[in-house]
């Protein structure tokens, strides 16, 4: 495929179509609106459907309904809308309905800075809905990666029967880069596993033998029940501990057992010999990339670990990478959210935070300062 100039939000929309998404429900919000606009035009071209709902709560609800109907479904929003979606994201986690939620982060809280980037929703993407639940969150740092991770978000969502959040930011969403998209024929696209049993044997929430039981779409002869209540293997509400506990073990277990497939990061060849590492994600990884290059040119032994999966947190890799090191720099466009997780894994004394939450990018110079003068990099500036 020939290269073309493309916006991050456009890459997300095209990635969704390439992944097989055929239903989108959304509500306009800066800086995510282009995804809805593009899909309103593109989806019917490929036989898919678009609907603009009355709000974000309705959007995520319709997306879950579409997925229950057997269609790969997505919505896209930004912070304020993402907050509104939280209850139903929990429903998708509880009822194990695959769906993709894109959050193009803008500076907040509240209406914040609608056109300015942020990474303030890192914790909301993990813990935004109430109650304990597993979740997968992916985070792209370029236009091409946005395409790839959108496809991956659908793949993981369908394979693990879970909502997947694609955590973009206004910088990546609105940035234009020349990209050569992968040939659609070459793409690795995963579909929902079909059931092998007849309707009378089917249990939508069976705990064995697989930890991800097949989800049959409504309307295909398998009449079953879906609820947001704790449920038994048939989906019927239950308060019995001997039915609740196996469910909990299975839904957390399915993500834990899939870690090697779900967790994704990119490291450079210097990581094993580095004295300092920068752990970055999203748009900030671009500044970090630049900073690391400049520091290496000046003779520093520094390396970049770029995270593409934020949740589940790539705990093992971060732990081993930081083992020999005195310093781990975590630049973020927030007051320190993923840094909390890095600190938990590598120890607080090793972590140097570089933060800003004013709608501006963390600059390469800020990160470079932290690499060269450790005391300067700490805390919010």
């Amino acid at each position, binding site marked *: 495929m020939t290269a073309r100039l493309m916006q991050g939000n456009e890459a997300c929309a095209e990635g969704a179509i390439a992944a097989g998404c055929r239903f989108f429900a959304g509500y306009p919000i800066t800086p995510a609106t282009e995804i809805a606009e593009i899909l309103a035009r593109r989806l019917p071209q490929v036989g898919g459907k678009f609907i603009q*709902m009355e709000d974000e709560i309705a959007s995520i609800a319709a997306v879950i309904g579409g997925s229950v109907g057997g269609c790969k479904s997505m919505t896209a929003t930004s912070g304020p809308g993402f907050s509104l979606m939280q209850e139903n994201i929990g429903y998708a986690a509880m009822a194990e309905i695959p769906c993709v939620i894109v959050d193009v982060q803008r500076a907040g809280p509240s209406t914040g800075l609608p056109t300015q980037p942020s990474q303030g929703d890192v914790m909301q993407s993990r813990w935004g809905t109430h109650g304990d639940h597993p979740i997968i969150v992916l985070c792209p740092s370029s236009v091409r990666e946005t395409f790839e991770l959108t496809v991956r978000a659908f793949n993981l969502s369908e394979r693990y029967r879970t909502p997947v959040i694609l955590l973009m930011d206004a910088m990546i969403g609105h940035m234009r880069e020349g990209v050569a998209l992968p040939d659609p024929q070459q793409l690795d696209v995963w579909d929902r596993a079909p059931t092998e049993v007849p309707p009378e044997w089917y249990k939508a929430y069976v705990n064995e033998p697989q930890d991800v039981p097949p989800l049959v779409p409504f*309307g295909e002869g398998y009449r079953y029940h879906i609820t947001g209540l704790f449920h038994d293997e048939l989906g019927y509400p239950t308060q019995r501990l001997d039915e609740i506990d196996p469910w909990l073990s299975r839904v957390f277990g399915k993500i834990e057992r899939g870690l090697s497939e779900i967790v994704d990061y990119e490291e450079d060849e210097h990581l094993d010999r580095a004295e300092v590492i920068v752990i970055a994600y999203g748009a900030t990884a671009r500044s970090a990339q630049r900073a690391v290059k400049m520091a290496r040119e000046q003779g520093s032994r520094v390396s970049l670990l770029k995270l593409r999966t934020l949740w589940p947190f790539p705990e093992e890799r971060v732990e081993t990478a930081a083992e020999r090191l005195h310093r781990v720099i975590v630049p973020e466009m927030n007051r320190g959210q993923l840094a909390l997780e890095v600190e938990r894994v590598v120890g607080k004394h090793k972590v140097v935070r570089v933060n800003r939450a004013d709608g501006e990018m963390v600059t390469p110079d800020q990160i470079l300062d932290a690499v060269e003068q450790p005391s300067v990099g700490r805390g919010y500036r």
Partner: protein
Amino acid sequence: MSNGPPVRPLESRVHERYLRHSKKFPNVWCAGCGNGIVLSAVIRAIDDLGLDKNEVAMISGIGCSGRMPVYVDLNTMHTTHGRALAFATGLKMVRPWMKVLVVMGDGDALAIGGNHFIHAARRNIGLTAVVINNQTYGMTGGQYSPTTPRDALASTAPYGHIEQPFPIAELAQAAGAAYVARSTVYHARELQRFIVEGLSRSGFSVIEAVSYCHTTFGKQNQMGRATDMMRQIKEQSITSAQASKLSKQELADKIVRGVFADRDIPEYTELYEGIIAAAQAEIAAREEDEPTREPGVPVGEVE
């Protein structure tokens, strides 16, 4: 004014073909509750129409009404509070051939779900909404709802209710629903007929089922037992033909039963097929214009 298939004579064991044999009964509803009558009317309506159970979905929100789908051998989904219509909209979009029934209570449909209710009506998407109106939040213990009458007592209106109630059927009609009717749990056969009619229409249909809650609202307002409240509904209710002869004052405490709207408005998912046709025609025309274009350049190539 029934244009749909006729309501069949009462068959006493029809529920056996529609309730789930694998579900643990009894149900969660209080003895004497009107919800069972609504469930019965829904089941009989589906049976009257001879619908294939595989092609019928029942979706609910939260509250006593929210528990209805679990008992019924259909494609059933118990969603979040107020959002049943939005979930149902997504399902209907991708499975337009399915009959999607949405069962809600008055708090569910009109307070927390009020926005979805008016927009589903405005969009005229082919869902059938059955709203059980018992004028209170029963499951949480009798708080005032959007249909609680003024001056009534509620656990959150201990000094009397000062808000005016929403008239559900009139609201649905004004918001654009294709079919709107109101009956009561006393008039079970009429309710069944209205559900038959609603399910037979392609657009958004709303059937308000006036019910009661004797364990909360009834108790708070000293309205007696379930049978007393049922009797009161019977005595308060009049047909729309009778209502047309009454003054506004005379109508004040009446429950007007009947069909309020039955109009031929294009249904949303049918209209969307036109969008798909237009989008694909545009692509085809563009490809005819530029037959030699490099593959994969702008839109239209990624399948």
